[in-house]
């Protein structure tokens, strides 16, 4: 049994954890939930020995232990898969080395690398997880979900007793999530405890036996899943009832803003036709790997357009670079925030005002006052939890980083906004706030493309939806008249099979 007692952790300007208790039995799957910035990742990082200093005590099987560095944690059987997978992988080394990293580092092997063993063992781990990844591949060539699996493989190899998964499902497709759950259940049956963090509460209710809730760095309570409902846990997380997950203002839909015809290009985008009207939220539904991200990027001038063109307000253009696209009035909130959306080592303020810096300049000189004012406003609007606008992005919680990536575009004057999975890792309360902000944009007559693999989100938010499969749009549907099942059917290629038969 693992027990954390009265844990307190303070960062400059932030009390991230305040007297938190946390207990996990052996062989259980235990959820840790809370809004963005509640302190989930911080608590888990302490448990994994990533922070030297903390107040409070940690016990394993009633023995008090210290947790001052990652090695101590590992010796106590605690292994973590971080929220940001890239922080734990070495991109230019092979999959085998990354899986076997602990073995290499632990010093149990000789001075010389036993390449044969390392490759063989890594392959075995992947086979046991039923994964088809070449162990000699470089990690930099893997997809996000494959990287995740490499980390889980690493933890399994370590024979961890306590496995911490910090938002593992955020980048995964439905099938991949299912596979992960299968693996997690299997590990549990082998006697491992799994601590599972997720903002997708349906998942929590699917596989967890117990739920611990944190709010603003404080311990709210631990509950048996059986005695809880999704609504009740949301209430505990936010401290209030969430009345409406999809606040929707009725807006008039007017003239066509964006028209895309016979559009093909890099990334497998193939013959896409779509249009967006003023005041309209258009969904782009599809599974992970269906080509949504590729399409969004191509529209935004990243990649080569092979065929077709884009018309914005009747004016045709072919963006060659993102700068072209911004010039024409497009904005993109990209999917992989850490790589594309934000500058991690810059302040919240700098990030928020970067795309629209022109507005806060006078004859090319930045006006500090205006920048500050705009930042403070949008921190408030998007609900970014930060001690000040000067805080570095790297010090924000994962979900709050995402909010900055989104928030900066709400300041822009673009005509059409493209959102690519913007609510990944964002808590339910903030999601509703983001939907509201999107609602405000359309009320001003803007057009929105909203790409997501979470179909309930598509149904709740959008007016119309294009379903993508294999790089092309296979179906156009009216959101009010369709169902999740129908979306799933088409996004799994159902329509094509239909035609063939």
């Amino acid at each position: 049994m693992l027990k954390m007692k009265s844990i307190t952790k303070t960062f400059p300007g932030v009390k991230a954890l305040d007297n938190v208790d946390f207990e996990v039995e052996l062989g259980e799957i235990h959820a840790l939930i809370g809004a963005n910035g509640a302190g989930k990742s911080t608590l888990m990082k302490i448990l994994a020995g990533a922070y030297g200093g903390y107040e409070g005590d940690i016990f394993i099987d009633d023995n008090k232990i210290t947790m001052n560095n990652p090695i101590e944690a590992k010796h106590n059987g605690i292994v973590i898969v971080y929220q940001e997978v890239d922080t734990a992988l070495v991109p230019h080394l092979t999959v085998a080395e990354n899986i076997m990293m602990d073995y290499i580092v632990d010093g149990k092997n000789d001075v010389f690398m036993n390449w044969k063993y390392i490759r063989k063992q890594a392959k075995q781990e992947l086979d046991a997880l039923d994964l088809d990844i070449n162990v000699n591949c470089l990690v930099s060539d893997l997809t996000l979900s494959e990287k995740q699996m490499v980390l889980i493989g690493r933890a399994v190899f370590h024979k961890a007793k306590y496995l911490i998964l910090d938002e593992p499902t955020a980048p995964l497709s439905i099938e991949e999530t299912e596979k992960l759950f299968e693996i997690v259940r299997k590990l549990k049956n082998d006697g491992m405890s799994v601590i599972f963090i997720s903002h997708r509460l349906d998942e929590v209710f699917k596989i967890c036996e117990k739920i611990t809730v944190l709010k603003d760095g404080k311990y709210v309570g631990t509950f048996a899943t059986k005695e809880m409902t999704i609504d009740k846990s949301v209430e505990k997380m936010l401290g209030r009832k969430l009345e409406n997950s999809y606040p929707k203002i009725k807006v008039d839909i007017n003239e066509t803003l964006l028209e895309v015809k016979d559009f093909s290009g890099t990334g497998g985008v193939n013959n896409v036709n779509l249009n967006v009207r003023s005041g309209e939220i258009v969904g782009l539904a599809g599974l992970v790997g269906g080509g949504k991200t590729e399409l969004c990027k191509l529209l935004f001038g990243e990649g080569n357009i092979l065929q077709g063109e884009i018309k914005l307000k009747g004016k045709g253009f072919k963006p060659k670079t993102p700068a072209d696209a911004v010039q024409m009035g497009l904005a993109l909130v990209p999917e992989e925030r850490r790589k594309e959306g934000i500058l991690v080592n810059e302040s919240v303020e700098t990030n928020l005002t970067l795309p629209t810096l022109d507005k806060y300049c006078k004859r090319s000189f930045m006006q500090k006052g205006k920048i500050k004012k705009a930042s403070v406003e949008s921190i408030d609007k998007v609900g970014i939890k930060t001690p000040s606008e000067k805080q570095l992005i790297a010090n924000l919680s994962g979900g709050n980083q995402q909010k900055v990536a989104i928030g900066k575009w709400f300041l822009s004057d673009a005509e059409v906004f493209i959102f690519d999975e913007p609510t990944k890792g964002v808590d339910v309360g903030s999601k509703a706030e983001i939907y509201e902000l999107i609602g405000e944009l359309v009320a001003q007559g803007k057009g929105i493309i909203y790409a997501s693999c979470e179909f309930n989100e598509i149904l709740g938010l959008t007016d119309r939806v294009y379903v993508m499969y294999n790089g092309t749009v296979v179906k156009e549907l009216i959101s009010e008249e369709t169902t999740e099942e129908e979306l799933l059917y088409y996004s799994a290629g159902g329509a094509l099979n239909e035609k063939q038969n």
Partner: protein
Amino acid sequence: MKNKTKKKQFDLFKILYKYGTIMVIIAAILFFAIALDNFFNFNNITNIFRSVSIVALIALAITISLTIDGFDLSAATIAGFSSVIAAKFMVVWELGPVPAIIIPLVVGVLIGCINAFLIIKMNIPDMLTTLSMMFLLTGVSITFQQGSAIYNFMPLPNNGGIASGTMHEAFLYLGQGELFGIPVPVIIMLSVATLAHIFLNHTKYGRYLYMIGGNQEAAKLSGISINKYKLIAYMISGLIAAIGGLVLGARLGSGEVDAGGPYLMDAVAASFIGFSIFGIGKPNAFGTLLGALLMGILLNGLVMMNFPYYSQDIVKGFVLIVALSLTYYKQMR
């Protein structure tokens, strides 16, 4: 659908990426072999190897620092400095060859330590630290040897007569000797390269360096002591540079302040060309060796063709651009 990216197809670019640099090397060899009668004979080949040995050693020193995502710009100067120390020991202080070999190596390691200290404790970026060290060492060598070069029977300052010590035979053997018909510098170069290769690829310490260079955060979180291995990397870098310096001094038969300087840029080029060999995409000893060889082959061939020396740099620059394009173009996509 899921594995769209893994489609097996003939990908010209991938092949170029993997074997492009090798093809450039082979093309260069073929070209010179056809164009020049005596390019492809044993003597000339030994000649090429001998001429690249110093560049290769300095490049290997730089390569080690590159593995941790550092950059040892002072490597060439360390080499020059160590040749000066060796010469001073033998010619002026009349000490035997043993201290003249050991002390410069120790000094090389110490300079590596100082570099590492400034980088780790003072938090100065690697390139700036080693750049400062480069200036500092050049100044120190000039002061240390009181201006001119140190050579046999040199006049001593303050009318001290003629220096009575000489560069020792055993020491000169390092730069001028032959073993089974193979020049000693070549043997040293190949041994150091092999050891570096084994160290980097087949010992766990080498992997630690790559892990730190690839993702310092990940390395730290998995329990690697970053500072310790950064220190080790710079110490090894200093050591290899000092070995290069001994070979340099032995070949010249003297200690000269600026002897190391000219090798710096070629060595940097060789290390980066090394990235592109076999599409490895990261610093590696074998690639660096081939990179140095490529530079040597070009130089040798061009000289034999009576290519004006001032135009040789055009070819060098061009080859470097090709190799770097191969390395970095892929990372963009």
